[in-house]
């Protein structure tokens, strides 16, 4: 019997030794991330020059759709630097990173880099200097907004300039240095009534732009905010005409959300209107699936900072996150 007891012991010990975990792994050295290029070449152009060449006019573009969408494939090594001034940290900007000319390195302009990936912000934190080689990428405008990407057919069958493949970051995009959260490029341009009103400002040079606009939300005016605790029919003629949006009673006054799902248009966004003290109107566009969408619109004057673009005669601003509202929301 001793023999069996001994066997019992030996095999018990052996079993514990044998079944040591195999699913153990070393910590990752994230400094060697194999996503970006380590050298895309020497800077030989600027954002302003790129926009002037590819975004000022559709003449000579490889692909065009109407008068608001075109793109051209870049066939040479055009390399520029930009500082990340807007990204998708809240989800309000989708597959977009806005780059701004580094201060003192050329005319102060911005352009959108579109990348086919969600949650770009860890790769492109604000204040990060980015070097882009445009060779084999496409530059043009989408709804008159200058951007870099690749063409694609949208879910409605429209040929647009869309995001570039993520894998092309390895050949075309280089991160330079570490992000500087206090970079001067992160200071938004403050737009007054005169600037907004001047038609001469509505040019590709000013779109996109990191900008601030101060005003009240038209949908929260006394006339438009709703007077009873019931769903409010949208009364303007747009994509969502005839739909009802929810109201929230706060202390006897009724508030609306930034972007209730029921009101979304084909782009899954909801438009509100900022009215400045001088009566200028700027569209505040918010995606329906992010933290901003579920906040209540303020009914007082605030400053809204974000990515400014224009279409036709309308200026439009898209917030990067809730920190782009000042004073901060308290709901």
């Amino acid at each position: 019997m001793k023999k069996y007891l001994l066997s019992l012991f030996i095999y018990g010990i052996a079993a514990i030794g044998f079944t040591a975990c195999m699913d153990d792994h070393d910590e990752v050295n994230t400094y060697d991330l194999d996503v970006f290029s380590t050298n895309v070449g020497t800077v030989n152009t600027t954002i302003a020059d790129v926009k002037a060449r590819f975004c000022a006019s559709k003449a000579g573009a490889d692909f065009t759709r109407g008068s608001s969408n075109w793109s051209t494939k870049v066939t040479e090594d055009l390399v520029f630097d930009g500082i990340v001034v807007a990204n998708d940290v809240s989800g309000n900007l989708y597959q977009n990173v806005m780059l701004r000319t580094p201060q003192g390195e050329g005319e102060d302009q911005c352009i959108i880099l579109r990348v086919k990936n969600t949650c770009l912000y860890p790769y492109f934190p604000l204040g990060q200097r980015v070097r882009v080689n445009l060779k084999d990428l496409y530059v043009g405008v989408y709804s008159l907004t200058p951007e870099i990407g690749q063409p694609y057919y949208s879910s409605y069958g429209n040929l647009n300039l869309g995001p570039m493949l993520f894998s092309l970051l390895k050949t075309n995009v280089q991160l330079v240095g570490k992000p500087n959260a206090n970079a001067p490029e992160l200071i938004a341009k403050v737009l007054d009534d005169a600037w907004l009103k001047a038609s001469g400002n509505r040019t590709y040079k000013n779109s996109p732009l990191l900008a601030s606009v101060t005003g009240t939300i038209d949908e929260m005016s006394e006339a438009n905010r709703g007077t009873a605790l019931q769903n409010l029919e949208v009364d303007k003629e747009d994509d969502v005409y005839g739909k009802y949006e929810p109201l929230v009673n706060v202390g006897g006054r009724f508030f609306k959300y930034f972007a209730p799902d029921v009101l979304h248009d084909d782009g899954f966004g909801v438009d509100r209107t900022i009215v400045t003290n001088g009566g200028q109107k700027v569209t505040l566009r918010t995606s329906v699936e992010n933290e901003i969408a579920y906040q209540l619109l303020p009914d007082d004057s605030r400053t809204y900072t974000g990515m400014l673009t224009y279409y036709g005669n309308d200026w439009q601003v898209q917030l990067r996150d809730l920190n782009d509202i000042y004073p901060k929301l308290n709901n």
Partner: protein
Amino acid sequence: MSKGAKLMAAACLLAATGWAQTPRDSLLNTDDNADVTFSESQLGDEEDAAQTASTISNLRNDPFLSEVGYRFSPMRFRIRAYDNQYNQYYMNGLLLNDVESGRFSYSLVGGMNDATRNRDGVSPYDYNTFGLTDVGGASNTNTRASMFVPGHKLTLSGTNRNYVLRGMYTFATGMSPSGWAFAGSVGYRWAKEGVIEGTFYNSFSYFLSVEKRFNDSHSLSLVTFGAPTERGQQGASTEEAYWLANSHYYNPNWGYQNGKKRNARVVKSFEPTTLLTWDWNIDHVTKLVTTFGFRYSNYGSTSLGWNGDAYDPRPDYYKNLPSSAFNVYGTDNSPKWLADNPFALEQWQSLYDYWTASKANRQINWDRLYYVNRQAAALGQETLYYQERRHNDQLVFALSPTFSKILDPYNKFALGLVLNHTKGMHYKTMEDLLGGQVFTDVDKFAANDYGLNSQEAQNDLNRPNRQIREGDVFGYDYNIYVNHAKLWGIFENNSFRNLHIVAGAHIDGTTIEREGLMRNGRAAENSYGKSGAAKFLGGGGKLLLAYRITSNHIFTLGGSYSARAPLARNAFVAPRIQNNFVDHLTTENIFSGEAAYQFNFGHVSGKLTGYYTRMTNMVEQTAFYNDQEARFTYLTMNGIDKEYYGFEGALKWEVNSHLSFTALASIGEAKYINNPRAQVDYEGMNAVTIAKLNTWTNPVTGENMQLRVFAKDMHVSSTPLTALSLGVNYNVKGWFLGANLNYYNRVYVGFSQYRRLSNVLQAETIQRDADGNYSMAITAEELQDLIERGGLFYDKDDGHVVASYIPKQEKFDGGFMLDLSVGKYIRLKRGRSISINLSLNNVTNNRNLRTGGYEMNRDDYYNNSQHTQRAYSFSNNSKYYYANAFNAFLNIGYRF
């Protein structure tokens, strides 16, 4: 205390700690040559083989069932295409099938081949003394220590399958004069990397059996076993991914982390089980066997998780594949279109180049997941990627007394009671934050839909916004309680001339209840606490008539009917979220019949069988990540009717005592025969939204109709409905040689119920013409599109469904597989022996045989007003598994 009692106590103690290792025994079968090479080699693959070997596959007196399970197992063959829940596995008279899923998990006895070899199989209609068997038959493994042949056996195996090395040691003392018998077994299976890249295997097993015979009437047997196992899993992928990887064995589940391979889907399981059996021989014809069983299962499987906004980290996510650039299956493929849109081919080429440039590019990029999480943490953001472990633990208490009596030489009967209480514990834990710092227990998808601060976003309203660390429970946490009681009886009569009769009946009761341990924000009122028990009364009976013309010619006719409770795993609408039962839940009905002729003409013997089984009112639930809705989805079909019918044949020609030929055939059909009710639940949505999703609105009348899955004529998947085999065996002077040529066909892909939902299928209206005939005012191209994609035609006047076109279910190509085996049995002095077996499977290295797969749950079209076709064709990109390429198994056993 005697030495034996001390040892028994020690064994119990060790078993309780879960690390009981004991010397282990060896063979129950005195004939060591019964180590059929195929069974020896293939039993080790059971975990990933979807339990292909039927529990009744070693039914020795049935020439078909005794061979078919192992011979066809490389193709994951299931007898008659039945789900494994219809095969029952008993040990010492106690049913070990899991009452939640209905299935027996072979991992429970993994690595205990020798210890569990003493198994008796019974066909669905046979008399037996351990239980009333289901339509798939049953087997009972006798693990009492006294049943093991005394001695030792050491077994070493090498293979290129899930594991590469296996070692087992078994021992048995036999019954000592003092009435004690001991048997035990320990084993270890290991692979740093299995035959599929990125997988690994690390499994220990132990088995201990102690028996005390008090006198001629009473004996007590204690058996405890377990197999702590850790293994990396293989994943299915699309044909495009296989093509890009240049291998049908591409595994998307792994990737490099710091240059080393890491698998995202790792199973850890340990299911220590203890059985206590009291054998009471009341007299020489009367017996009472009572077995009490206890099992505590720990089963967890990891998976990558990601924040609702984060990019899907799976390497074969469709947006990463070249065919996402343009529809390579559609008209876009024309040279003109490509010339007009050169960017499409550019992007295709770019993705192709990326996939083929290096192996790392087509696997999970763990380093990137860490990078992203650390960057997000530095910005004060939530963790975007993580690895979670989904636990399905169980606590089982079962009792099974069985009384049997031989009345006279012609009559005998058995009566039994089965009691089972199972507590299933289902939850998930944070396995690895992958470098992330902050993770809040909210549903990221619901946060997108309702806002981060909404009630709906909370996974547990009782502990809102809980911060999760590694090891913490999060997401869902619930228990499922199942109580099952069954009274059964079986009677055999041989008193009529040449007629053998077996009749059996049972009645059972089942209760099913959910207990939520979290108050989920999407179901605040019905997620926390107990659901209340659903109660089901079942029962049934069976009859076998066997007419023996001569001892060499036997006709049998069998039939059975049973009504049984639905499985607990299918009973709740969305078990992770809420307590609600599936609508219209009631007992399932199974009717089955078969006719067989077993013959023996001298050197030629065999059996021919025809069978028909109809299952009605069945419930099935699938849970999957819904790409269309970007949400985890439950889809339950209720009121399913299915048919199984076909032919089975086995023929054996024993030319002489050395040479024999065998032929096997299984040609059957297994399909859905109606369009069952459907119920859909998305994890991230509240009840109001889900109610809308479950609406099927008639486009003509506006009436809200019962949502259905158009499943009629869909085939049961992932098993060959045609399997044929020719074999030859030769043995001489201790050598055994065998060869089997197997042919498989009619394997179908698992169909997506989602794509066949009545509110997902395209709707068209048609009208009668003046002659009263329906005319379709659509082009041939449009009709073809409807046929491929699926659509419903409604009468333009009254709205009834005139015709339906259901997306076709893919049938895989058939093919051959050649298996060879050679073995040598060497008798040594003093009763020692060595057995050597080498089996070579798929010798022709056929790498194109699909064993199974599934369609993706996504439509080819956008849900917008223009219904534009997507660039990526989901209907042409199902995911597949392939049968193993050429593989070998060498087994050396030394008995001493």
